[in-house]
């Protein structure tokens, strides 16, 4: 190793070791708890630090509960809620980002600031605001009550939870979408129009392929935290009827005496997200190759 490389390695070392100890090792610890044993009297998890002695009995039990038992509903619900929230977020977020990037004109800076603002407002403050509005005596409930709508929004309503997820995460979608759309070379779209493409054709053949990678990245950026969310659900519903995977993890890790189940669910969630992520990486690299061709 030459002198320069030694300097760079010395600079990188503290941070790299930090991540090794407090990021990589904890993941190993999760596996050791998940594949460890359980104290027969206190039911507490006893981690098994040697991978050769890992036991997969409890993991299989949880897995069969996911495929054909009580946990199946939780998994299905999590996926349905997140996918619905993503679709609604895109339906609102894409036009907003598109307008901001293409047509905002002189008012762009003002609009941009107003759209960035919720990004900086604490997540729990935004949920608190809605809990106040949706509670039976809240402004929103009283307002829709004038039209004869009587609905208990905060008691296990899937609509509230899905819209809560949309409200919570949409700022994190709009900004990267805007950044992607703003950077696109719109002259290519104009060229397509000049060559006779209709606006819809230009959108499909030129805009979509150009924006695809950025849009997919933005989608991933909100999908990952949504899959692990439990507090939105807790604040807006706290009912077993709307329970998601994150709520189960929170429950088993924090308030039950079976942290082993929590560790197993953490591994399952990570695996699920890893599969989704590698699928995304593969599809974007294919997009890149197609464009080169």
């Amino acid at each position: 190793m030459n002198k320069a490389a030694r300097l760079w390695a010395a600079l990188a070392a503290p941070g790299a070791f930090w991540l090794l100890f407090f990021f990589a090792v904890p993941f190993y610890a999760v596996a050791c708890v998940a594949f460890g044993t359980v104290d027969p009297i206190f039911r507490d998890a006893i981690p098994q630090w040697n991978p050769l002695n890992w036991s997969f009995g409890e993991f299989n039990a949880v897995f069969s509960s996911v495929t054909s038992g009580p946990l199946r509903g939780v998994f299905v619900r999590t996926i349905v809620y997140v996918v619905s929230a993503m679709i609604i977020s895109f339906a609102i977020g894409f036009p907003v980002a598109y307008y901001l990037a293409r047509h905002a004109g002189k008012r762009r800076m003002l609009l941009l600031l107003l759209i960035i603002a919720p990004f900086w407002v604490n997540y729990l403050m935004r949920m608190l605001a809605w809990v106040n509005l949706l509670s039976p005596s809240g402004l929103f409930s009283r307002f829709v009550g004038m039209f004869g709508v009587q609905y208990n929004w905060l008691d296990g309503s899937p609509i509230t939870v899905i819209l809560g997820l949309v409200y919570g995460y949409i700022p994190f979608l709009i900004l990267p979408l805007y950044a992607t759309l703003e950077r696109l070379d719109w002259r290519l779209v104009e060229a397509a129009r000049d060559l006779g493409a209709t606006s819809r054709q230009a959108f499909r053949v030129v805009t979509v392929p150009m924006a695809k990678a950025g849009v997919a990245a933005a989608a991933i950026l909100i999908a990952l935290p949504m899959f692990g969310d439990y507090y939105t659900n807790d604040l807006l519903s706290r009912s077993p009827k709307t329970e998601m995977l994150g709520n189960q993890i929170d429950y088993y890790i924090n308030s039950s005496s079976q942290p082993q189940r929590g560790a197993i669910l953490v591994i399952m969630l990570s695996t699920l997200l890893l599969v989704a992520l590698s699928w995304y990486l593969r599809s974007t690299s294919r997009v890149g190759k197609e464009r080169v061709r």
Partner: protein
Amino acid sequence: MTSVSTRRVKALPILIWGYITWSLVPVIIAVIYSFNDGRSRTVWKGFSFRWWFGDKYASVFHDDSMRQAIVNSLVLATTTMLIVTPLGLALAIGSHRLKGKSATAVQGMTSVPLITPEIVVGAALLLTFTRLFSGIPLGFPAQLLGNVTFSVSAVVVIVRARLVSIGSSFEEAARDLGATRFQALRYALMPLLWPSIVASFVVVFATVIDDFVITSFLSAGVESETVPLRIYSSVKGGATPALNALATLLVATTFTALTIGVFGLSFWRKRHGEQGGFKSALSDLTRMGE
């Protein structure tokens, strides 16, 4: 443009203003209700500062547990910021210049936290601190370590973007003029890195003061309760408008930090003749380019 698409573009401003109203008005209403004279967070009884400081026991500035939460939040955010910025700065410079397998490994390891849901990190660290590194007690020490771990990658991203835009020519010039590698780093590169250091300070402070999941998983009861934890635990009960006031304070703190950051950065850019000004300062802090 055809008439159809013109009409579509005309519908967009309505949508965008509708979105802005929907995203901001509920929060503004919550802020207004912190000035409610009544005990309710939903029924307006007239304007007063009762829940800010009027009430001698239950207002934000007199309620001991709320004051404790504010102090805890500020201490946690400031300490994390001071530890993680130098750590991430060194890691960014080192990993940017390293070559070969070790560089790939380090860069891979720094990008994983960016795509890991917080609940996974929180749960993993809780299991680690209770079963493996049991010398680290839950509460402030664990919360500090957890927040540093989760935000170090953000600092690396910010600093690395700056390193790419600076390039290596300044350091090479310094080396040609006889500086050692370390001197080139210290006197040619470091002064140019200031904007990314300030951006890291501000972003980390704002992220940590707003953090809920990791801080909650690693807390040890009331003594280590931060403002977001306090909001979470009292939203559903019959909390008074003092809770709205507490949340308003949190939002005001974040906004102050970020405003100082934006104006500081755009001032720096202007003074050093860099382009972009206000808008680049804004995008530095919102990490739009990620």
